[in-house]
């Protein structure tokens, strides 16, 4: 009975604590100048350091989409430009943001949770508070802002590299000449598509960093607790990223 009760109450309690954490984080914004030194460092960790793996994953996503589209759709009755018409919107609308999101959930989310979790179990967060510092303002606000700023940058890079990767594989693999790929991409281009992708990337950036901060900040239970928080941060970020993806697609498209 107690187990059933916990299954119901724990998610509600977690949501309440997460909301309170965000409330305190927004409350710390007026004194952000004190914590802004951390922002640049976090932007480097979250954005710049993630660039190589994001670009690699995006290039392969674009390339695989090209090959699969060619396999499924290209017949003598369908023009080869259809490959560009599918690869470019796929990257801009979905893959650019989602692939980047999954990579950041694993790479950045786990890092944030492990970092804050270790600080919690070694009393470094208590030390910050005991000095009279707002630990949420100092640790969480710069990480979330860095995520919201850098995710769209990574998204743009992922789209560019993904579409280019798809085009290159199409051209050099003999699936579609570069000119036809570009023609196809242009033909079905909607100006709202990149705006939608950018909105998604803002939401994903916020979701991943805030959930990971929450999991790390409230870590308990020593080294095992840090491991648990790190795993939960990556898993929860992925789950809520998919949920946000669906909600945004259903409401904005």
């Amino acid at each position, binding site marked *: 009975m107690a187990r059933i009760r916990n299954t119901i109450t724990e998610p509600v309690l977690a949501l309440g604590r997460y909301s309170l954490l965000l409330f305190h984080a927004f409350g710390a914004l007026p004194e952000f100048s004190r914590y802004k030194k951390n922002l640049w460092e976090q932007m480097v960790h979250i954005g710049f350091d993630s660039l190589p793996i994001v670009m690699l994953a995006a290039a392969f996503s674009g390339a695989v989409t090209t090959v699969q589209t060619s396999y499924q759709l290209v017949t003598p009755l369908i023009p080869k430009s259809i490959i560009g018409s599918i690869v470019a919107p796929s990257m801009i609308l979905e893959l650019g943001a989602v692939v980047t999101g999954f990579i950041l959930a694993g790479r950045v989310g786990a890092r944030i949770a492990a970092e804050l979790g270790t600080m919690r179990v070694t*009393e*470094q967060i208590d030390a910050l508070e005991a000095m009279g510092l707002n630990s949420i303002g100092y640790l969480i606000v710069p990480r979330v802002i860095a995520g919201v700023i850098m995710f769209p940058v990574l998204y743009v890079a992922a789209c560019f590299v993904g579409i280019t990767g798809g085009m290159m594989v199409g051209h050099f693999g003999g699936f579609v000449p570069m000119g036809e790929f570009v023609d196809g991409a242009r033909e079905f281009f909607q100006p709202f598509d990149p705006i939608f992708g950018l909105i998604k990337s803002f939401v994903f950036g916020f979701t991943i960093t805030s959930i990971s901060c929450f999991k790390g900040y409230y870590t308990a239970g020593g080294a095992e607790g840090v491991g648990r928080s790190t795993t939960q941060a990556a898993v929860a970020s992925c789950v809520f990223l998919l949920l946000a993806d669906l909600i945004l697609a259903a409401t904005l498209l």
Partner: protein
Amino acid sequence: MIQVQNINKQFDDKQVLFDVSVDIVEGETLAIIGRSGSGKSVLMKHIIGLLKPDSGRILVDGTDINAISYGELREVRQHFGILFQGGALFDSMSAFDNVAFPLRTFTTKSEAEIREEVMICLNMVELPDVGPKMPSELSGGMQKRVALARAVSLRPRYILYDEPTSGLDPETSNTIDALIEGLAEQLNVTSIVVTHDMHSVLNIADRAAFIYKGRMHWTGTIDELHDSDDAILRDFVKANEYQIGH
């Protein structure tokens, strides 16, 4: 002056503190003693507002720290320095930056003034050369001494020590005790030392407060501790390999 008045604290189903009261007088060194798990560290965290009591009050210079805003509480905390059990040095910063951190955060001093102040603090703990080292490169005792330098960098009025000698060899423990005693005199601070190390208590404390199973069982001066015939207190002291009166 710090006044702890009738505080109770429960975690989940377990009551940790029962109606605990104690006064800490300006300028004294009070040792809070008791077995592991008796509630000493929980009491210390209440004193700085890191934990809120279920009932009761903590007054710092007459201000109830649980009845003020978070911003006001942070101002009160700036009068405190804390030495955590593991040191709690920021592991992403060098020893120098750890000590400089409160100065850079809470003062408008120039980098040159901060450098000078950090060196004074590191000299106080007799570690003038460790500035460039990272916490992971320091021994446990050295980490605690750097953490102590950080705790005193803003010249607090109160210093809280959480098990300052636990896990240290007897010689290093004596060094830490001497530092605590020296800082109390040099800086004229009020010190609260949470410990179960009776050797340390006898070296540095003016008074002791004994917590037993979450209750404030006994308080008195060190002389009164020697003369006490309280059976539970005597058992605790004996278990620490010290015979009262010797």
